């Protein structure tokens, strides 16, 4: 479900802004480190952090959009890729300067340290809550885009920038808001991942590839696609691990799935 949250942000930014945000993994990392700062060092409540960290990172995302990304929309895609790639390097080093390069850990929120038996096995309550939270966030986002006024404006701006601005919509501001929201989602993923994984400046690089696969498999720009893609990639990975005959190929499985889907449906499962 972490992958879903990150892929949704990626998809949202691509769908509306048309930008392939390579730095998305770096915002995920930043979210995790902000959580480390607040929870492990500052003693802030984990649930409060779950709100605060995405706000902080989202604000940074907004600033970056205004300062840098905005200048790139009318240029070739290559420039956007270069810019977002540069952002990865800068954010990675920023994290290194502020928090050091050593691994960092965030403790699990206390009430969810327990394990819950399901089908004879024990599952940590925290992992289960993360699984539950994913669809809730996804559904909320989907409903907001579909049924609210702001959602309609975003969709209008995504469909036709010029027409939307002719109708009096402040398109640049919409784009800033969407980019901020996308990066905030990545940061939310980072906060949720922090008690599960070890924090290091390279943690964003690992997840960005998987998130891209998820987004591409589901169809770039599609929310239900990202959801299904995340489930598929998770299942395919686990299938490779559990099946002894295929364990050797387990690493290749997500890529094979992506290649197959691109061959059959180049726009992804839910791509328009």
């Amino acid at each position, binding site marked *: 479900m972490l992958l879903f949250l990150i892929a949704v942000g990626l998809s949202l930014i691509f769908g509306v802004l048309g930008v392939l945000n390579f730095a998305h993994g770096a915002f995920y990392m930043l979210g995790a480190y902000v959580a480390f700062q607040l929870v492990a060092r500052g003693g802030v409540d984990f649930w409060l952090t779950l709100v605060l960290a995405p706000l902080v990172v989202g604000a940074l995302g907004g600033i970056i959009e205004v300062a840098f990304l905005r200048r790139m929309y009318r240029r070739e895609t290559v420039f956007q890729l270069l810019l977002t790639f540069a952002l990865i390097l800068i954010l990675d080093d920023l994290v290194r300067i502020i928090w050091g*390069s050593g691994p960092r850990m965030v403790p699990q929120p206390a009430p969810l340290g327990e394990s819950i038996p399901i089908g004879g096995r024990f599952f940590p309550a925290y992992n289960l809550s993360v699984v539950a939270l994913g669809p809730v966030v996804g559904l909320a986002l989907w409903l907001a885009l579909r049924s609210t006024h702001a959602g309609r404006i975003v969709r209008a701006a995504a469909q036709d920038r010029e027409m939307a601005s002719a109708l009096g919509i402040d398109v640049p501001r919409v784009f800033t808001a969407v980019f901020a929201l996308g990066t905030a989602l990545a940061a939310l993923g980072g906060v949720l991942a922090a008690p599960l994984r070890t924090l290091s400046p390279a943690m964003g690089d690992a997840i960005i590839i998987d998130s891209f696969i998820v987004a591409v498999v589901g169809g770039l720009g599609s929310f239900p696609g990202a959801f299904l893609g995340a489930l598929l990639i998770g299942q395919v990975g686990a299938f490779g691990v559990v099946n002894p005959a295929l364990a*050797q190929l*387990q690493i290749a499985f997500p890529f094979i799935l992506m290649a197959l889907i691109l061959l059959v449906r180049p726009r992804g499962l839910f791509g328009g």
Partner: protein
Amino acid sequence: MAGTRLTRRRFVGLIGAAAGGSLLAACGPGLAPAGPAKPAGPPIKVGGMWITSGSLSTYGEFAKQGLDLAVEEINAAGGILGRLVEAKIENEGAADNAVRVARRYALEENVDFLIGLDSSGVAEAVAPTMKELRKILMITHAATPRVTGDLCNRYVFRMSVNVPQNSASGARIAATEIKAKRWTNIGPDYAFGRQSWDFFKKELRKLQPDVVFLDDQAQWPKLGNEDFTSFIAKLQQTQEADAVWSSTWGNDLVNLVRQGNQFGLFKSGKPYLFELGAAMEVLETLGDQMPTGFWVGTRYWWKVPDTETNRRFVDTYLKTYNRYPSYNAQNAYTGMKLLAAAAAKAGSVDTDKVIAALEDFEYEAPMGKIKIRKEDHQALAQGVWGKTASDAKLKFRVLEPVKVFKPEEITPPVPETGCKL
């Protein structure tokens, strides 16, 4: 006007002299209290390569501290043959990058020695290049048997414990302490993980002929894997295996142990042998989340051996960096000191002369007495394993008891290495 200019110039000159004087005064005693005031020649240059970026960069951080400490001590004692040592470090990165850095060190910066390397994959690419660069490379971490095996050449040395030595020590723990019948494996999917499991199997079969290895249950997460959930589920479902060998290391091991704790993996009582579980990089990070009572291996443990040399090294390191040295720190330190000692013995930093001095060289390091075997340039060093235990005074797990294996017991004989020098 002329007067003011003169005054200003004199003023600036005075400031310069004063600053230079105080700088000399400040540095003088620190740099060379025992050595000659003037070096006997240009500095001796050393080019280091370790992982200094990405998720495994703590290894490079420790290595830098070890190297810096060695250089400081060598220079304080007058340098190598009266010449001061100047060391720099670059990130080894991927294999092609490391080969580029090695070339630049040797051809453009004209360093006297190369030192370092963390990754086995990288070492297998750099080692053959040394033949053409004609400089000594002292490997301090990368454990692949191949660089002192089929890829060996006269320029490449390793002062640290390699895969066969570490796996052979682990096999002895398996045979005497665990006594399980059926073993499986979880380790990173690259040269090191595969070699580790192969050598473990080979050694344990010799010691315990009725042992069964469940290769089809073995798991190979990629290096840098973060989510171990499905691997943990598989380990819990694999009922046939009585015990598990694991070469998972660095942050991967931290993730495996943490997530394993969350799923109750280590509560089943099934023994796990963590080949590199006693790395300080891992123990410091995990703290009390490292379960106690598990056998873990390392390439140096700061409490072993209990010698004057080791105590002095650990004390100095602790005072300088406020932490205990990891094996990577000790290895970088010893690698540098070993080069200096060999150059002193050779009376020169000439590559051929230092190679001759290093061959069959016996050296007393913090990690114990080591001997560089002439035939393959691999150090004969002792293997260290221990059981994780808590220590009231320290924030990380310690080893209690510790088991030490003699070099001759755990090092494959020269014909088995495949090295022909």
